[in-house]
């Protein structure tokens, strides 16, 4: 997920290297010369990362069978409607939870504020499918809550109404509860960075706290909020585990139904292509609204005023507004998992647990570092050579984020197998030996899928970080006699540190939770905590899966805490305020 630490983040343009000469041909030549290794590298890497998504598109170009007629007649309207409602619902839900919480913790003082600041990020560590399993166990008809109600009031089924958790609104709620931290994170960063001067001016002009919020702070934070919400919505569109378990038909469940159930991979790819159009519309909308609302702050180091201490009932209302998401998004589900784990762990934990843990952690760390390196490459490439071609390629590589993991996995599997076949055929013909499978079924394939899926997460952070390093700073450093290397080490690295850490940690947590691509592409005898959780849960042994689910959550908490501290440090004015 993205964290642009600055609203309106996008790489600033540097003046292109001046090339002597006049006239059209010189201009053309300059463009051509401009296609140096940086541009080629950026475009090449982007295309490679977009390969899985492109594979899906190419598959979708083939003529479809009779399945579309059937889909249009029966379920397609449902898929579109449910996907749209899910996207909108999760967007609104995460805003309603994330923005007030961010506004309260960033500018106000109330009981528990210091704890909430970082604890509100905790739900991020819980995979959506796990929270869905947990709440179903708690709230469905046969669960403890409804059973207790029936027993204490002697009700039977017809006597009362209880909200159905396994429904579209239920899915919206589940996803909103684990995804709001992303909106919170971005909103908080935006509120913290808002110029004090602007707020002081509005205050001196007589604007009350509410008016300052909705007339000044909120509009200024809008680009960050839109960025956060659009990412959350992409996650919601790509979700499979939750909607499938809740029996809500969306594009993702439809893709699998058409592919597996009706055995039509082309129509499935076309459905996936349609899903990508949704995503594309979302991205265009995001870019468009950011362009409409871009604000710049004029200084970097600002003194922040003392927090506004809330009084009377407002204090407690603020505490409540922060406590509720934390309670329902983390404490309750994690508590339920702990209770189950306590009961089943002695039976379920064996020597394999440490293998699972080490596989999960090493995959997540390896992927995070690799993705960071790629994001840096693309980020710097674009900064050094801002060409529309390079930018378009990078945007294309970012589409993978909204594609369901399974689709990405198949998109990885097919081209890699083709490469393996090609190399093998060549070696057989010319060397008389078989090279077998070089890439398919290896950790490489898995890392490839992670890169496609999670690059945008890291890229957003890196781009936002780079945007804060104004070109004028580079120039100043160079003018003062620093070599390019010195500029990198003494200016860029210190200023980027927070963003880079954010990128690594976000990807780490995402890979830790990732399930479908891991399931499909992993090598022999290679399981992870998420895979083990899924195998048990899908075999309807929720309590047995709890130890492993809890391990995923616990392994994610450390990075999440680090993350909140990194963000605390990287904001301007941090030194000025304790």
């Amino acid at each position, binding site marked *: 997920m993205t964290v642009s630490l600055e609203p309106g983040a996008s790489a600033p343009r540097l003046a292109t290297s001046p090339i002597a000469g006049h006239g059209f041909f010189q201009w053309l030549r300059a463009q051509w010369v401009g296609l140096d290794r940086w541009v080629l590298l950026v475009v090449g890497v982007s295309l490679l990362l977009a390969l899985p998504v492109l594979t899906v598109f190419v598959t979708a170009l083939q003529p479809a069978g009779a399945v579309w007629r059937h889909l249009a007649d029966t379920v397609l309207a449902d898929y579109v409607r449910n996907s749209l409602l899910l996207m909108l619902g999760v967007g609104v839900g995460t805003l309603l939870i994330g923005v007030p919480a961010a506004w309260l913790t960033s500018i106000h003082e109330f009981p528990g504020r210091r704890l909430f600041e970082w604890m509100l990020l905790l739900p991020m560590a819980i995979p959506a499918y796990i929270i869905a399993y947990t709440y179903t166990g708690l709230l469905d008809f046969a669960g403890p809550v409804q059973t207790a109600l029936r027993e204490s009031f002697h009700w039977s089924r017809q006597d009362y109404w209880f909200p159905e958790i396994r429904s579209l609104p239920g899915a919206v709620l589940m996803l909103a509860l684990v995804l709001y931290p992303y909106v919170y994170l971005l909103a908080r960063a935006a509120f913290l960075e808002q110029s004090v001067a602007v707020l002081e001016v509005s205050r001196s002009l007589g604007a009350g706290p509410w008016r300052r919020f909705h007339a000044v702070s909120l509009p200024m934070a809008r680009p960050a909020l839109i960025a956060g919400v659009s990412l959350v919505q992409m996650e919601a569109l790509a979700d499979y585990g939750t909607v499938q378990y809740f029996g809500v038909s969306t594009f993702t469940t439809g893709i699998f*139904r058409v592919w597996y159930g009706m055995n039509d991979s082309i129509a499935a790819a076309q459905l996936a292509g349609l899903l990508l159009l949704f995503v594309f519309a979302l991205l265009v909308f995001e870019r468009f609204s950011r362009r409409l609302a871009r604000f710049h702050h004029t200084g970097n180091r600002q003194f922040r005023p003392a927090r506004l201490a809330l009084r009377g009932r407002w204090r407690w209302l603020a505490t409540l507004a922060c406590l509720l998401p934390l309670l329902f998004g983390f404490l309750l589900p994690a508590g339920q998992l702990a209770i189950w784990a306590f009961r089943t762990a002695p039976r379920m934990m064996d020597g394999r647990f440490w293998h699972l843990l080490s596989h999960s952690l090493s995959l997540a760390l390896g992927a995070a570092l690799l993705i960071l390196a790629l994001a840096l490459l693309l980020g710097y490439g674009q900064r050094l050579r801002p060409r529309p071609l390079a930018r378009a390629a990078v945007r294309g590589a970012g589409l993978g984020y909204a594609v369901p993991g399974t689709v990405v996995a198949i998109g990885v599997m097919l081209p890699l197998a083709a490469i393996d076949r090609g190399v093998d055929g060549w070696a057989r013909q010319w060397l008389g030996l078989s090279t077998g499978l070089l890439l398919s079924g290896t950790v490489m394939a898995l890392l490839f899928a992670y890169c496609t899926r999670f690059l945008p997460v890291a890229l957003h952070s890196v781009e936002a970080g780079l945007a804060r390093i104004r070109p004028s700073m580079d120039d100043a450093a160079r003018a003062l006699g620093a070599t390019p290397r010195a500029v990198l080490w003494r200016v860029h690295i210190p200023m980027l540190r927070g963003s880079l850490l954010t990128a690594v940690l976000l990807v780490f947590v995402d890979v830790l939770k990732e399930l479908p691509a891991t399931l499909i592409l992993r090598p022999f005898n290679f399981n992870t905590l998420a895979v083990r959780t899924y195998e048990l849960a899908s075999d309807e042994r929720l309590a047995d899966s709890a130890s492993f689910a809890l391990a995923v959550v616990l392994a994610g908490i450390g990075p999440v805490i680090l993350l909140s501290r990194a963000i605390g440090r990287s904001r301007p004015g941090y030194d000025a305020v304790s």
Partner: protein
Amino acid sequence: MAAGEVNVYSARKEDLIKPLLDDFSKQTGIAINLVTDKEETLLQRLQSEGVNTPADVLLTTDAGRLAAAQKAGVLQAVKSEMLAAKIPAAYRDPDGYWYGLSVRARPIIYAKERVKPADLSSYEALADPKWKGKVCVRSSDSIYNQSLVAGRISHDGEAKAEEWAKGLVANFARSPKGGDRDQIKAVAAGECDVTLANTYYLGGMVNASDEAEKQAAAKVAVFWPNAATSGAHVNVSGAGVTAHARNRDNAVKLLEFMASDAAQRWYAETNNEYPVNPAMPPSATLKAWGEFKADTLNVAKLGELNAAAVQLMDRAGWK
């Protein structure tokens, strides 16, 4: 590694297969490498890997998928007297491309308190309006329901099967959701009176360590439908040797091991599935639910009709 190795793609979950594979390794010294996943993606993986596939054996939980794998050309025929002797003809491919290894039945499960077994007769009769608001069923995304409907299409014809599905949908107590155990729990808790579920889920609940699951299982009973007609719907889990297996001999050894009496007993006792070998007794839990007439339709037919079944359920509004 003197005895070599064998590489297995398994759609059976690790927990439900690993102990058996470990036994095999212990007895033969042949090492086993295992990947588990859904059968559809394993099949896709086999196809895209082609002649270079490392897999020697494909294990699935559904005969339809084995038939699909055979059609896709990723399996090879295996002749084995031992397998032919132990496994009845309805549960294996006539040419030996795949062999069933355990049988799973999907009968009607009802609430003992509210339903008299005399009121039940067949799958078809569940579409009767008298069951309005009393049927809980899992989503049509479930391969178990897809196979069951494919069976109905095969026996009753597509038009009648569709009419039946519409009637059944009209009787749903709630929109389909959850897994098989959830359906059984919903019946036990009184949300509905009858459901369709695979028996090993109920067996798992009967023998669960969790008190609540045990209590729920105690409130329901099994009814074997269609005793006078087609017999109860059954499917098999099974395995085939891949077309490009490098460890073919070891792969055949593994199949024979899984059809052996000891392994069949393990299937019965641990997973509460019915052994494919009719000479082997089912577990005590299964025995308590009585003998039943199983559908004799060759299970490969279920795979052929799968796409038709899914589309039929879409038309019937079975979510």
